[in-house]
C-alpha cells in the first residue's frame, strides 16, 4: 500500500515536470512558424497586439478581443489579421515585463516612462515616414495642433510614437456641483463668492435637512478641485514669485484654502469620518440626502446623476455651476500634462504603416463616417457603445470634443439640429433619451452638455476666456520626481488632513512645507527647474 502511494506520487511529479517543460517550449515553435509564414507568403498582414482588459466592455455573442467588429473591419478593409498576444488588467506591469524580456507584441501602447525607456534602448520602429505618408487628413488635423505633445514622442528628430492625445482643455476644469431641487427651493442661481457658498451650505442644512455642508473624502478630492476658488494650485508646478518654478502647494494661497476648510470642519460642514472615507462612502451621504454639494470635475453627473434619482427621487440630481471666487478675480483652472498613452511599433516589424492606417480607420468610423455619409448612425452605434470604442488598444485616439460640445449643446438648447461629427450625433441622441423619455442612461451626458450651465458648456467658456493654467512640467517628469513616487504628495495630504480636522493648527502649514522641502521637495524642485526652467 505504502509503495503504491509512493509510486503514484512519483508518477504525478514526473508528469508535472514533463508537462511544465513541454508547455514552455510550445510558443517558441509557433512564433518561428509565423515568421516563416510572413516572409514566404504574400497573404494577409499579421500584426500582434497586447491589450488592456476593458472591464465594462460587453462583446456581442461569440465575439472577443481577437474577433470583434473592429478586427472584422480591419480584415475587410486592409486584409490585416490582428492577433491578440495577451489581454490583461495589469497592463503597465505586463508591458514592463514584456520590455524586460524583449518579447514585445508588434504594436502596443505605453506610458511616458516606458516610452522614454524604449526610445533610449532603441526598441521602437521609426514612424516618421509612415505618419507622413499614411496619416489621413483627419488624423493630421488632430495631431498637428498638439505640437507640445508630439514633442514628447520625438527622439532625435524622429517620430517614435503616435500620441493618443486627450479630451481637450475644456474637460480639465472644475465645477461646483449642487443638488438641483435644493438649489431651486432656496432660489439660488449662482454662487459667486465663498460667502455665497457658505450661505448655500447653511441653507441646505436649515431648509433641506442636510447633515453636512460639503462632501470630502480621504483623498481630499473636493478640496483640490475647489482650490482654484482661492487661486491656489496645490497640485501643479507654477511660476514662483522669484521667477523660478515652484510647487503650487508651497504658495500662501494653499494655506488660505486650508484655513477655510478647517473652519468648515469645525462648523460641522464636513463628515467627521471623512479622513477614512473613500469616494463610495462619501457619495453615500449624498444618496442618503445628507449633503447637497461638492466641487468636482465635469463628469460628476455620472456620479451624482442617475444614482441620486434612483435613491432620492426625481429632480434630485446635481447640476454644475462655476466655482465661487474668494475675491472677484478671475479663476484659473490647473491643467496637468495629459497625454498618458502612446501607440508604438516594435523595432523590426515590417509594416509600421499598419498602425497609422488602423488609427485612421478608428477616426473615420467614429468621427467622420456619419458626416460624409459612408455609414449611418445605426451602423456606427455598435462601434461606440458597450465600450467597444475602448477595446482597440494601440489603434485608438482620444477625440477632443470642443466643437462637438458646442454643436450638441446649441442643438439641444435651440432645438435646431446642427451636428458636425459622428461623436456629436451619438451624444445628441444620448441626451434626447433623457430629455424626451426620461431614460436615466442619458442623464450623465445631459449634465455634461445638455443645458446652458452644463459642465462642459461652462468648460468651453473657461477655455475661451483663457482660464487654463498649465503645469510647468509639461511632458516627461524628471527622474527625481519619479524616484519619490507619491510619497511627497502623501506627506502633504497627511498634513492637510490634520489641519482640516483641527488636529494641527493652521500655523502647522509652514512646518509641513518645511518638512516637504526637507523630504525631497527641494531636490525635485531643482530637477524641475533644470528641466523646464528658464535657461
Amino acid at each position: 500500500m505504502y509503495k503504491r502511494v509512493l509510486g503514484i506520487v512519483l508518477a504525478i511529479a514526473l508528469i508535472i515536470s514533463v508537462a511544465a517543460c513541454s508547455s514552455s517550449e510550445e510558443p517558441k515553435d509557433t512564433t518561428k512558424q509565423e515568421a516563416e509564414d510572413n516572409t514566404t507568403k504574400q497573404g494577409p498582414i499579421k500584426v500582434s497586439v497586447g491589450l488592456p482588459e476593458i472591464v465594462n466592455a460587453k462583446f456581442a455573442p461569440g465575439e472577443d478581443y481577437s474577433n470583434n467588429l473592429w478586427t472584422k473591419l480591419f480584415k475587410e478593409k486592409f486584409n490585416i489579421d490582428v492577433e491578440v498576444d495577451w489581454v490583461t488588467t495589469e497592463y503597465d506591469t505586463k508591458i514592463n515585463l514584456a520590455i524586460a524580456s524583449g518579447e514585445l507584441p508588434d504594436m502596443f501602447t505605453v506610458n511616458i516612462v516606458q516610452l522614454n525607456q524604449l526610445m533610449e534602448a532603441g526598441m521602437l520602429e521609426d514612424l516618421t515616414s509612415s505618419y507622413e505618408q499614411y496619416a489621413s487628413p483627419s488624423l493630421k488635423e488632430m495631431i498637428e495642433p498638439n505640437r507640445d505633445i508630439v514633442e514628447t514622442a520625438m527622439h532625435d528628430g524622429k517620430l517614435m510614437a503616435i500620441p493618443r492625445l486627450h479630451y481637450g482643455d475644456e474637460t480639465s476644469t472644475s465645477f461646483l456641483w449642487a443638488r438641483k431641487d435644493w438649489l431651486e427651493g432656496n432660489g439660488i442661481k449662482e454662487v459667486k463668492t465663498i460667502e455665497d457658498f457658505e450661505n448655500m451650505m447653511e441653507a441646505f442644512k436649515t431648509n433641506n435637512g442636510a447633515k453636512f455642508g460639503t462632501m470630502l473624502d480621504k483623498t481630499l478630492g473636493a478640496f483640490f478641485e475647489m482650490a482654484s476658488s482661492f487661486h491656489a494650485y496645490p497640485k501643479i508646478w507654477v511660476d514662483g514669485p522669484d521667477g523660478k518654478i515652484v510647487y503650487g502647494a508651497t504658495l500662501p494661497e494653499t494655506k488660505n484654502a486650508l484655513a477655510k476648510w478647517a473652519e468648515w470642519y469645525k462648523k460641522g460642514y464636513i463628515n467627521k469620518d471623512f479622513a477614512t472615507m473613500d469616494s463610495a462612502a462619501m457619495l453615500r451621504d449624498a444618496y442618503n440626502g445628507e449633503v447637497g454639494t461638492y466641487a468636482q470635475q465635469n463628469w460628476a453627473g455620472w456620479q451624482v446623476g442617475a444614482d441620486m434619482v434612483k435613491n432620492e427621487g426625481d429632480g434630485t440630481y446635481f447640476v454644475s455651476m462655476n466655482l465661487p471666487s474668494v475675491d472677484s478675480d478671475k479663476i484659473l483652472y490647473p491643467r496637468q500634462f495629459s497625454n498618458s498613452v502612446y501607440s508604438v511599433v516594435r523595432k523590426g516589424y515590417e509594416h509600421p504603416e499598419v498602425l497609422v492606417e488602423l488609427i485612421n480607420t478608428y477616426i473615420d468610423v467614429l468621427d467622420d463616417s456619419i458626416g460624409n455619409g459612408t455609414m449611418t448612425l445605426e451602423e456606427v452605434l455598435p462601434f461606440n457603445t458597450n465600450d467597444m470604442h475602448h477595446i482597440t488598444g494601440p489603434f485608438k485616439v482620444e477625440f477632443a470634443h470642443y466643437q462637438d460640445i458646442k454643436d450638441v449643446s446649441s442643438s439641444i438648447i435651440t432645438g435646431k439640429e446642427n451636428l458636425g461629427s459622428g461623436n456629436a450625433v451619438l451624444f445628441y441622441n444620448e441626451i434626447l433619451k433623457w430629455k424626451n423619455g426620461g431614460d436615466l442612461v442619458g442623464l450623465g451626458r445631459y449634465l455634461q452638455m445638455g443645458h446652458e450651465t452644463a459642465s462642459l458648456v461652462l468648460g468651453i467658456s473657461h477655455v475661451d476666456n483663457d482660464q487654463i493654467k498649465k503645469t510647468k512640467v509639461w511632458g516627461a517628469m524628471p527622474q527625481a520626481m519619479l524616484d519619490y513616487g507619491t510619497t511627497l504628495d502623501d506627506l502633504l495630504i497627511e498634513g492637510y488632513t490634520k489641519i482640516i480636522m483641527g488636529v494641527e493648527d493652521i500655523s502647522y502649514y509652514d512646518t509641513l512645507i518645511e518638512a516637504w522641502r526637507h523630504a525631497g521637495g527641494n531636490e525635485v524642485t531643482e530637477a524641475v527647474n533644470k528641466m523646464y526652467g528658464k535657461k
Partner: protein
Amino acid sequence: MQSLLFTLRKQWQYHVLLIPAVVLIFIFNYIPLYGLIIAFQRYNPSMGFQSPWVGLDNFTRVFSQPNFVQTIWNTLFIAGFQIIGGIIVPVVFSLLLNEVRKVSAKRVFQTIIYLPYFLSWVILAGVMIDILSREGIMNTFLSLFNIGPISFLGDPKTFRWTMIVSEIWKSFGFGTVIFLAALTSIDPGLYESAIVDGAKRWKQTWYITIPSIMPIIVLMTILSLGNLLNAGFDQIYNLYSPIVYSTGDIIDTYVYRLGIQQAQYSVGTAVGMFKALIAAFMILTSYYLADRFAGYRVL
C-alpha cells in the same frame, strides 16, 4: 564519511523522492536570487540586467527618506503584536475547544472561527470600514455604555490596535486547527496516569497538555518570526488613510507608494532584500534560542 555512505545506501529511495521538491525549489527559489542584482543597479526594463551599476545607492535612497525609520518601527509594532497574539490566542482557543465534550459543537465552533481566514482583505476591509465608522454598529454598541465614539480607523493611536486585533481575529482559526491537531496526538495514557496521581484539569493542562504541544508552539513561533517585517500589506493598504500614516504606514505600503506604482524596480528589490536578510537573521536566532531553551530542533 563511511556512515554517510552507509545511510545513503540504506535510504536512497527517500533521497530520490526528495529530488522533485529540490529541483522545484532550485528553479523557483534559488535561480531567481540572481535577480537581486537589480537592487544594486538603476534598473531599466529595456536594458535588463545590463542596467548601470549604482552600488548601494538604492539602499541609501530608501533609508534617507525621513519617514522610513518610522515605517520600520510601525511594522515591528504591528507585526510583533500580531505574532504574539497569533500564537497565544489560538493556543488558548484550542485548549478551550479541546474541553468541549460535544463533538458536533466543537466542529461548528472550529468552522466558524476558521471562516474569516478564507476571506480576502479587500472584502473584509469594506465590511470593517462600515462597522467601525462613527455611526457604525461598533460605535452604536459602545454608546450603550457611554463609550466613544471611537474613530477606530481614523485615529493614529487606535489604528494600529485595530490592525492587530482584526488580523488576529481573521487568522487565529488557522492556528487553532493546527494546535487542535497537535492536541489529539497526545497519548491518553499520560492523562490517565495523571488522574491516578490526583491531578485535576488545571494541573493536567499545565503539566501534560502544554509541554506536549510545546514543540508545535515553538515551530509556529519560529515560522512566524520570519514575518516580523511583514505586517500585512493587503490589510493595511485597504484600511489606512493619510491621517494614520504616522502610525499605520508600514514598510510595504510605503515602498508601494515610493516606487512600485511608478515601476521603480530597483528600490522595491532593495527593500525586499533588506527584509529577507532581517527575516533570515530572525529565523536563525529564534531557531538557536528554541534549541537552547526548549530543546527543539528540526535536524
